[in-house]
């Protein structure tokens, strides 16, 4: 089973990297960029075939390691 965990900074947390990218996009003349927030994507292959078990494992992975829940949110998606 393939899955994707997306980790993003919580709203209100300063994101200097996102700001720098935002500035670069604006200086490239890319139209209509209002703001940029940077995050991380983890593509994970699981041995499990049970959907509920897979989701529980991914949630554990995100809580224990992939995200620092002090400053980050995460989203778990099962892709196939």
């Amino acid at each position: 089973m393939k899955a994707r965990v997306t980790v993003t900074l919580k709203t209100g947390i300063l994101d200097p990297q996102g700001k720098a990218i935002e500035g670069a996009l604006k200086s490239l003349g890319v139209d209509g960029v209002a703001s940029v927030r940077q995050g991380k994507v983890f593509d994970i292959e699981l041995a499990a075939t049970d959907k509920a078990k897979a989701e529980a494992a991914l949630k554990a992975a995100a809580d224990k390691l992939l995200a620092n829940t002090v400053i980050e949110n995460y989203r778990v998606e099962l892709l196939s």
Partner: protein
Amino acid sequence: MKSAVLVFPGINRERDMARALKLASGNDAAMVWHADTALPAGTDLVVVPGGFSYGDYLRCGAIAARAPVMDAVRDFAAKGGLVLGVCNGFQILCESGLLPGVLMRNAQLKFVCRDVHMKIERSDTPFTRGYNAGQVIRVPVAHGEGNYEADEETLKRLEGEGRVLYRYCSPEGVVDEASNFNGAANSIAGIVNERGNVLGMMPHPENHVEEIMGCTDGRGLFAGLAQHLKAA
């Protein structure tokens, strides 16, 4: 003083740290590998040194914080044992939940490697008894992620409970925006946990302990610890 210095892959200040500890206490520090599950018997100080554990992958200190040896460190801290984390060690302690908050990218997005000044906020702790309250010392920093941040409530508690031990300041001791080179909340350079036995700090006191280093302002921290543990 029987200290244990943790060694993770990618750490590079462990020898400097061991040298400073030996200088202060006369005893050799035990070097403890990250995969070990116990600390040497009789350990009374655990030091998490600086460097780039696991290449700073994922988040600085995130992977080291989940290493087997950290369970032993958590037990040790829960029993009141003294833990000191410097630079990457501070990041590891935050990631492991032993200290609140997080170290974010420096506000200017630059890696800063130079001497800075910090003020000792109080002298009645094992980590600061080698100094006077209000004293200003010069210490080197070398980090890209040292911008300490925590939610408002946590910051209020840290300040209210006197848990900010070190703050960036000018050479004259003025805490201002200009001397807060990494953008840390309230110019925080070092904090302790609720119980006061776990300290995390970004500057490297271990690199200012011998005349040949050009400054010995870092000695007080180690001398104070040695004195505290001798008395205990």
